[in-house]
Every structure is written in structure tokens, then in C-alpha cells.
């Protein structure tokens, strides 16, 4: 087993990996940019080293610096977390060249699954259902029209190397086809340096359901059931569940088997996720993409299976077999995760800045993975997610009730957060019924401030505000009698108007 692991990441996921290391008696080494000297991963790791200026490409994406710290600290393995270098095959090769172990899949797996077209081809070969669409990139307008008429409208045009909705176009009918094709290509070129685009069927009531898979170097490949991640805003996941409320046992079984088949076909090593688009109406599911890393939402799977996915990653990277066999993985109860972000819950604008108070929820059947603490300044340079709140119940209703309780206990002030958004979302009928699709927040949710802020008596806000404003003004008034008197006079005149 490894003696010391360097974590090439920051924030809550770095802390998550530090904890797994502690659980296994492995020393953890964290790295930090100049914006992160005061971040919690620095404080909680056994060792910590600076790696440069705040912008990611000068620190958390700087392969040379990270490798030089790894050697200096004597680490024997590197955990990439998610994001940053976690899906960069070049980084993996560099790590291996230095004689260290990369905790994650082989670079070849990243390459084949990193390109959407090659991934789809690979999946098709392995018998995994894919969304009807073009076989690979569209060559020209002629092919575009031909394939589009086979696939049918509405359809989507997507960038082959894309992600996060960039370079993606919705085409409702044939007349819009060519103009959108050209726009998609130019966006793709701009964002991803390649203007390859492809088209596929647009699923009308789509749900995002994904399967956690895991492979080891002893020929074992298993799945750890499904997660539902349809609660998204502009393709950013907001709230996740395990298991999906939409799958029946038969679909669940089939989806798990298909995912294992997909992972086996590329001899996948470590933790990975096969994302499917699920058609709520037809109950069909199609391969969307594979994430060759740990997911943000992995804790919901941990809560329901008892398997520590990060420990498992480390075991597998060290050449050990998986600690569980497929038939031992049991789905126990229901878990929900809320991503707590430093952002305005109405406008979704980021809200970096100083956290004034932070009272975390506690108690039965909840888990918090947070990088927030009182006095911490959320930097502007990185992702706005500051914490993940995960709850468990024997069934979905219990889990929802616990989420409501934990959110009510959660007090994070100084910055704006989306805590109140989550409170509102879990009260929505579409969420309660489990029938929400990936379109819910963007198209159906009335996230107005009236809707969000209905939970507390307005008078509590007004009285507290007035007393505190009074206290803020009072010392000034008493210290400088002249100003105070003058103000009183003005106040009196005012009162008489």
C-alpha cells in the first residue's frame, strides 16, 4: 500500500481524499495556490506545499510544479480529485514517467472516452444503446441533411470535444438546421479548437441517470447502482439522488449490466461513471458519456452501499482487488446530495467573499463535506461549490425530510448561497413525485425571490435589522453630541412632515 499520497486538487474534494488517506493510515500531501494558503485542505492534510499563483493554469493545472512537490515530499501516488487534471491523459503519463502511481484509470481509457465520437463508437461496438444520431462528425451540409432526416426533429448539434453546453445547439425544425450547424461549428472551433460537430435525437422528457462502475487489475468490474442527477441548471448538477426514483428494478438491473459491459470493453481501471439519458416516457436509456474519474456526487452512492469509493480507488491503484464483489453490493435506503454553492439563489451569479458565520448541520443520518469555515474567504478563481450536504433515509421520504431539517440548520452567512434554493426545490411537486427532468430548473421552476423566501416571518427580519442598525449608529451619536443633536432635530422635523 502507498505510504504517502499527494492530492492534486483543492477544496472539499481534496479534503475528501485526505480523509480516505487517514482512514487507511496513509499520509496526505496537499498543494495550494497563493489564493488557497488559508483553505481547509491545507489545514487538514498532514503536509502542505505551495504551487504558485492563484490562476489554475499556474498552479492546480501546472503539471511540472505538482510533480516537483510530489518528489520533494516523497509521495508515491497522486490522487487528482475531479476537475483540474483528473481527466488529462498527458498528466497520467507524466506521473507514471516519474515512477509514481496515478490513482485513476489508464490514459488510454481517458482518451477513448474523452472524445465524444470515439466514446460513442466504442459503446456502440460493445452493444451499449446510444442516442440515434450521426456516426461520428458531420462532414458537410449534405450529410447533415441526410442524417437529420433519419434521426428526426427536434435534434441537437453538439461539439465532438465539447462539454458544459458550449457548442451545443437545439434545432426544432429543418429550416433552422443549416444556420445552427454553422453556429455550432464556429463555437466549437472557438472553445475546443476543433470544429467537429455531430447530431443526435433530442429526448423530450430526459432524465440524467448514471451508473457508478469500478474495475480492478484482477479482472473484476462491478457497478454500484445508479444516481439520478436530473436536477440541473444549465447542465450544472444542483441536487443528486441515489437511487433514481424513476427506475424500476428491471431497468436498474439492465442499466447496471450495460454499464459493466461498457467498462469491461475498455478494461476500465478504478472509479468511473457511465452517464445515460433516460427517456421518462419510453423508458429507453442511451449512453451519454463516461466520466473517467470520481464524481462530485459520489457520496450518495457511498451512503447507500456503505462502500468508501475513494478508499476503493486507492486500493485498486495499489494493485489490490476490489473489497466487494458484485453480489455483495447492496442498495440500502435512499440518499440525496445538495451542492452548496457561493452564489445568488435567484440570479445564480457567483458570490465569492468572506464567510462570516458558518454553523453546520449535524446529527442523525446526515453527512457534510465542506470547505467553509468562519473567516474563510471564498476565492474568485475557482468553482463556487463550498460544501456538499448529503442525507440518508430508509426510503426517499425519510431522506427528503432529513434534507429539509439539515438545510434549516445550515447557517452560512457573509456570502450568498443557494441553501434557500435547495429548500425550495425539495418542496416542488416535480421533485416530490420524482418525475422531474433535466429541464425542470431551467424551464419549469419559478425560482423568484418570493417563491424562495417564504419560510420566515418578515417581522423577524425587520426587527433584527432595525435593532442592529440602531446599534451601529448609536455609538456615533453618543460620542459626538453635536451630530446626535442635529440628527435628532432633523428627525423631529422629519416626524412632523
Amino acid at each position: 500500500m502507498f505510504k504517502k499520497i499527494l492530492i492534486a486538487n483543492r477544496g472539499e474534494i481534496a479534503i475528501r481524499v485526505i480523509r480516505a488517506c487517514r482512514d487507511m493510515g496513509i499520509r496526505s500531501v496537499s498543494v495550494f495556490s497563493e489564493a488557497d494558503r488559508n483553505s481547509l485542505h491545507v489545514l487538514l492534510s498532514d503536509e502542505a506545499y505551495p504551487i504558485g499563483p492563484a490562476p489554475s493554469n499556474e498552479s492546480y493545472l501546472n503539471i511540472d510544479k505538482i510533480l516537483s512537490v510530489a518528489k520533494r515530499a516523497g509521495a508515491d501516488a497522486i490522487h487528482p480529485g475531479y476537475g483540474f487534471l483528473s481527466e488529462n491523459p498527458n498528466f497520467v503519463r507524466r506521473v507514471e514517467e516519474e515512477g509514481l502511481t496515478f490513482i485513476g484509470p489508464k490514459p488510454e481509457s481517458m482518451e477513448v472516452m474523452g472524445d465524444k465520437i470515439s466514446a460513442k463508437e466504442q459503446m456502440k461496438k460493445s452493444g451499449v444503446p446510444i442516442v440515434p444520431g450521426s456516426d461520428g462528425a458531420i462532414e458537410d451540409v449534405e450529410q447533415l441533411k441526410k442524417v437529420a432526416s433519419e434521426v428526426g426533429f427536434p435534434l441537437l448539434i453538439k461539439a465532438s470535444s465539447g462539454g458544459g453546453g458550449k457548442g451545443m445547439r437545439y434545432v426544432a425544425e429543418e429550416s433552422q438546421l443549416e444556420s445552427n450547424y454553422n453556429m455550432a461549428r464556429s463555437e466549437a472551433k472557438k472553445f475546443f479548437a476543433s470544429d467537429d460537430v455531430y447530431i443526435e435525437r433530442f429526448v423530450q422528457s430526459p432524465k440524467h441517470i448514471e451508473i457508478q462502475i469500478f474495475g480492478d487489475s484482477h479482472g473484476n468490474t462491478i457497478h454500484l447502482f445508479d444516481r439520478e442527477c436530473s436536477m440541473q441548471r444549465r447542465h450544472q448538477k444542483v441536487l443528486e439522488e441515489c437511487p433514481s426514483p424513476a427506475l424500476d428494478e428491471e431497468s436498474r438491473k439492465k442499466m447496471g449490466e450495460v454499464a459493466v459491459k461498457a467498462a469491461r470493453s475498455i478494461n476500465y481501471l478504478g472509479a468511473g461513471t457511465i452517464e445515460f439519458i433516460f427517456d421518462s416516457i419510453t423508458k429507453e436509456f442511451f449512453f451519454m458519456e463516461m466520466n473517467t474519474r470520481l464524481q462530485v456526487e459520489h457520496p450518495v452512492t457511498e451512503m447507500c452501499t456503505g462502500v468508501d469509493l475513494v478508499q476503493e480507488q486507492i486500493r485498486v491503484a495499489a494493485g489490490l482487488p476490489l473489497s466487494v464483489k458484485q453480489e455483495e453490493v447492496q442498495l440500502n435506503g435512499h440518499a440525496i446530495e445538495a451542492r452548496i454553492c457561493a452564489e445568488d439563489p435567484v440570479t445564480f451569479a457567483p458570490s465569492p467573499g468572506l464567510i462570516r458565520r458558518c454553523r453546520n448541520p449535524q446529527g442523525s443520518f446526515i453527512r457534510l463535506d465542506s470547505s467553509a469555515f468562519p473567516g474563510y474567504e471564498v476565492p474568485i478563481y475557482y468553482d463556487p461549490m463550498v460544501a456538499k450536504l448529503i442525507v440518508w433515509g430508509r426510503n426517499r421520504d425519510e431522506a427528503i425530510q432529513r434534507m429539509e431539517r439539515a438545510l434549516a440548520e445550515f447557517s452560512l452567512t457573509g456570502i450568498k448561497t443557494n441553501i434557500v434554493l435547495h429548500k425550495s426545490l425539495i418542496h416542488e411537486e416535480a421533485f416530490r413525485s420524482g418525475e422531474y427532468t433535466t429541464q425542470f430548473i431551467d424551464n419549469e421552476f419559478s425560482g423568484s425571490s418570493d417563491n424562495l423566501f417564504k419560510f420566515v416571518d418578515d417581522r423577524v427580519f425587520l426587527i433584527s435589522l432595525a435593532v442592529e442598525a440602531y446599534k451601529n449608529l448609536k455609538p456615533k451619536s453618543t460620542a459626538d453630541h453635536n451630530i446626535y443633536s442635529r440628527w435628532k432635530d432633523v428627525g423631529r422635523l422629519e416626524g412632523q412632515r
Partner: protein
Amino acid sequence: MFFEAELRGVKYRINVNETPSSWKVTLQADGERPELHVISKEDYKELDGAISFLFEGDSYMVDVVGNGISYTVYTRGSYRDIPIYNDEMLLHESLKAGDSLGGPNQLAAGMPGKIVKIMVEEGQRLKQDQPILIMEAMKMENEIRAPREIVVDQIKVAIDDNVETGSVMVTFKH
């Protein structure tokens, strides 16, 4: 001490009187009758940097952040941004109006971030909602648009500049 505040579109007149053992707070919503609340200081206490407020039997942990005329009040996972005024405050505000944030003739940064794109030039006449610049904060690009038809006077930032909350980025002609 007398204040005016606005919450969810409703204007309130608020009066606060302190006695040795209590706070007497009168709330009067626009067009409604005043409502007097006598809050014992035992029921409204500072605690762990917050306020423990026992109100009509209910227990609230409240945070009040802010100063001047702009406050945010948090409790039970919810919050309100509440503008509040009185004559003293308005006086203070007018004294520093010259350098106030995002006044009518300038565009100030609402959050810290980095300028990634500038779409206008000095002297250019803008339509309402015409994009002025794009600022990046926390991996998101935020497009800042013209509040009304207006002419750009000076552009005070360049691409790749980091700006703090309140930094003036663009001024407009009067």
C-alpha cells in the same frame, strides 16, 4: 431612532427605542397601522457572533451583516437584502456620493472578478441592454449590459484586469 426600509416591495417605517431591559420596535407597513413589539433583551441576545432572537415563542438565530444603507439579514437558511434609510444615513451617503458604488453615471463591479472581454469603446453610444463587458468570476462569465441608452465616457479597466467589488469599470457621459 427612525428608519425607512423596504422588503419584498413593501415600504416600512420603523422606530427603535432602547430601554435598559428591552427594545421597543414599531413596524408600520405602507398603508397599514403601526405595530409595536416590546422585545426583552433576554429574548434578543448576541451569541456566537449571531443573534439569538426568541420572538413570539419562536427561536431564531439571526445574522445581520452590513452597514450604511445596505443590510443583509439571515436566518433559518433564508435571507433578505434590505435597504434601510434614515436622515443621518442619507446625509452620510450624500457626503460620499462622489465615490459611491455604481452611481447613475458609472458602472462598478458588483463582485470581485476578472475582465475577459470589453465590447465598447470610449465615446460609443449604447442602447439599453447592449453588452458592455464580460467579467469572469468563479468559472462563470457574467455579461454586464447598459442600464439605459447612454454614452460611454471612460473605460477604466483592461482585459485580464482583476477588479474588486465596487471598482469603477466604466463611466458614462452626463
